[in-house]
C-alpha cells in the first residue's frame, strides 16, 4: 500500500478495496512508527485527518468524489492552516495557530484530501539542509546521518519514507528540487504566479512558488492540477486557465530538443553525479530526443544575485514578526525597542538573522544601488540567458544538486558552502521558470536528481518529459531500506 501511486490509491478507494479512513490510519501509523527517527512532521493532525477521511468516504459512497478524494497528503508547515499550528519551522511561530487557510490548503481540502499534518522545514524556508528548523534537523531516509536537503526537507523525507503518498513544498531557490534530488523523489516548482501565494508564509515574494514533492511525475501532475489557478487574492497570480497535466503525460518525445548548458557540467559538479545525469540524458535519446549544448553565460552570477534579492525581500517580509499581534514575544520587555529586539532576536534562529541582516544592509542608504539594484539587473541578464536558450531548445537539462546528500552538520558553519548547494536551481527562480527534479540514479547508495527546466507555463510539457523517462527507468519506485514494511 505504501508504494502505490495516486492513481492506484484512487482506484483502491473507488473500488472499495480500502476506505479513506483505513488508508489515512495506515499512513498515520507509519508516521508513528518511523517519524521519531526522521523528524519530518512538526504537527500530526490525526483527528482532523480521520474526520476528513470519513467525509471523503461518504463522498466516494455518494459517487461525488474526484480523483484525489480520500487520498491523504501533508503540507509543508509554511502554508497557513485554519485552526492548526503553523510554525514555518520557527520559534517565532511556535505558538501560532493560523486563523485562516492558504489557498493551496483550501483547494486540496476541497479536493477531499485528508491532511496528515504539517511538515518540517528550514526556518522560514531559509536553508538547503533542513538543519535550521527550530524543531530540529530532518534525517534523510536513505541515510539518517545525512540531510534530506531543504528547505522542504520534511516534505522530501516524509514522501521518501512513504509516510505520506505526496506532499506540498515551496521553492524559492531550489527548495523543492534540491530535497527531491537528495531524497530520490520527483519534485516540481511551477512557473512563478501559477500557484497562489495567499496564505503561504513569504520568504522572498518575487521568488517563492508552491509546488509538489511526490513519487512520480504522474503523481505530481495529479496534485499540481488541483493546486494551480488564478487567485484574486494574490496580485502576482497569473490569470490563466487551469490545465490538464495528466492527459498529456504520455505524449511521445520524438523531436524533443534538449539543451545542456555547459555551465551546469563544469566546476563544482561532483564527477559521479555528473555521470549519472549524463546517463539519464542518454536515455532521452532513446525516446527520440535530440541533445544540443547550449550556454547560460551568467549562471555563475545567479547565487550572488539571489543572495541579495532574497535577503532583501525577506528582511522586509519578516518585519511583521514583531511580537505585537501574534507569535513570540520576549519575557518582560523593558520598553518598546527591547520588545522588538529581543522578541525578534530570540524568536529567529541564526540563519534567518544572517539573511535579514544581509538584506537590511543591501537596502540601506548608500548600498542600494551597489547591491539591490545591481542584483535586479543581473537578474535580468540571467532571465535573458534562458529566453535565448528557449529559442533553440524545448527543455533544459542538467544536475539538480552538485552533490548527493551531505552529512548533517557538514556545512552548518559555512553559509557560503551551503548556498552553493543551490547553484543549479537558483537561476530558475530568478527567471520565474518552471523546474523539476526527477530521480536518475544512485551514487554510493544515495539518490541523484536530474533537473528539467521548461519555458514559462510549460509545466505540462515538463511533467510529460519526466513521465516518459519514468516509463523506462524505475529509480522513482525505489524505497529506502528500512521503510519497506
Amino acid at each position, binding site marked *: 500500500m505504501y508504494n502505490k501511486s495516486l492513481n492506484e490509491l484512487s482506484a483502491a478507494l473507488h473500488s472499495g478495496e480500502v476506505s479513506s479512513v483505513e488508508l489515512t490510519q495506515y499512513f498515520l501509523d507509519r508516521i508513528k512508527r518511523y517519524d521519531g527517527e526522521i523528524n519530518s512532521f512538526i504537527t500530526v493532525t490525526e483527528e482532523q485527518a480521520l474526520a476528513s477521511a470519513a467525509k471523503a468516504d461518504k463522498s466516494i459512497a455518494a459517487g461525488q468524489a474526484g480523483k484525489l478524494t480520500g487520498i491523504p497528503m501533508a503540507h509543508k508547515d509554511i502554508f497557513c492552516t485554519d485552526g492548526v499550528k503553523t510554525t514555518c519551522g520557527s520559534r517565532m511561530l511556535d505558538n*501560532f*495557530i493560523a*486563523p485562516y487557510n492558504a489557498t493551496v490548503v483550501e483547494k486540496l481540502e476541497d479536493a477531499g484530501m485528508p491532511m496528515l499534518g504539517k511538515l518540517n522545514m528550514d526556518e522560514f524556508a531559509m536553508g538547503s539542509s533542513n538543519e535550521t528548523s527550530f524543531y530540529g534537523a530532518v534525517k534523510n531516509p536513505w541515510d539518517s546521518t545525512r540531510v534530506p536537503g531543504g528547505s522542504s526537507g520534511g516534505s522530501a523525507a516524509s514522501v521518501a519514507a512513504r509516510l505520506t503518498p505526496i506532499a506540498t513544498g515551496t521553492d524559492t531557490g531550489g527548495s523543492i528540487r534540491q530535497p527531491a534530488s537528495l531524497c530520490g523523489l520527483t519534485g516540481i516548482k511551477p512557473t512563478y*504566479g501559477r500557484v497562489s501565494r495567499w496564505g503561504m508564509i513569504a520568504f522572498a515574494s*518575487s521568488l517563492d512558488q508552491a509546488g509538489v514533492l511526490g513519487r512520480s511525475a504522474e503523481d505530481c501532475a495529479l496534485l499540481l492540477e488541483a493546486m494551480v489557478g488564478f487567485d*484574486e487574492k494574490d*496580485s*502576482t497570480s*497569473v*490569470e490563466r486557465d487551469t490545465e490538464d497535466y495528466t492527459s498529456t503525460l504520455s505524449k511521445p518525445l520524438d523531436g524533443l530538443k534538449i539543451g545542456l548548458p555547459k555551465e551546469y557540467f563544469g566546476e563544482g559538479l561532483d564527477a559521479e553525479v555528473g555521470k549519472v545525469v549524463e546517463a539519464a540524458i542518454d536515455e532521452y535519446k532513446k525516446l527520440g530526443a535530440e541533445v544540443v549544448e547550449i550556454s547560460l553565460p551568467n549562471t555563475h*552570477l545567479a547565487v*550572488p*544575485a539571489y*543572495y*541579495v534579492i532574497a535577503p532583501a525581500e525577506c528582511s522586509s517580509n519578516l518585519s511583521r514578526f*514583531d*511580537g*505585537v*499581534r*501574534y*507569535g513570540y*514575544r520576549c519575557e518582560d*520587555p*523593558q*520598553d*518598546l*525597542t527591547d*520588545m522588538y*529586539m*529581543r522578541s*525578534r*532576536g*530570540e524568536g529567529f534562529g*541564526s540563519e534567518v*538573522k*544572517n539573511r*535579514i*541582516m*544581509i538584506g*537590511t*544592509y*543591501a537596502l*540601506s542608504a548608500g548600498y542600494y544601488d551597489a*547591491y539591490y*539594484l545591481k*542584483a*535586479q*539587473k*543581473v*537578474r*535580468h*541578464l540571467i532571465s535573458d540567458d534562458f529566453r535565448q536558450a528557449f529559442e533553440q531548445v524545448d527543455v533544459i537539462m542538467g544536475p539538480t544538486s552538485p552533490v548527493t546528500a551531505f552529512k548533517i552538520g557538514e556545512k552548518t558553519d*559555512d*553559509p*557560503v558552502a551551503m*548556498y552553493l548547494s543551490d547553484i543549479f536551481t537558483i537561476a530558475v527562480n*530568478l*527567471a*520565474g*521558470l518552471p523546474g523539476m527534479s526527477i530521480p536518475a540514479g544512485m551514487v554510493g547508495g544515495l539518490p541523484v536528481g536530474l533537473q528539467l527546466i521548461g519555458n514559462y507555463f510549460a509545466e505540462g510539457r515538463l511533467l510529460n518529459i519526466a513521465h516518459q523517462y519514468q516509463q523506462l527507468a524505475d529509480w522513482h519506485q525505489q524505497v529506502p531500506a528500512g521503510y519497506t514494511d
Partner: protein
Amino acid sequence: MSLTADEVRKIAYLARLSIQEENIQTYADKLSGILDLVAQMEAVGTDQVEPMAHPQHMTQRLREDVVTESNQRDKFQAIAPATEAGLYLVPKVIE
C-alpha cells in the same frame, strides 16, 4: 568586503535583532563571507540593463471597491500576546 563589529551592531539595530555581544564577531565573519560571494556581481557590466523586479511582465490587477471582510477580532486576538478592551497592548510608545 569585511564588516566590522560596529557595522553589525548598527545593522542588527536597524533590523531590530538583539545579538549576544559574544556572537557579534561570528556574525561579522559570516556576513562578510556572504558579501564576498555577492561581490562577484561587480565583474559584469550592467549599465544598459533594466532592473527586473518581477518574473512576469504583468501589470497590477485592480479590485473593485467592495467591503468583503467582517469582524473577526475574537479569532485574531486569540493568538495575540497581550490584548485588552479589543486593543493590542505594547510597552509604552513615547512620542
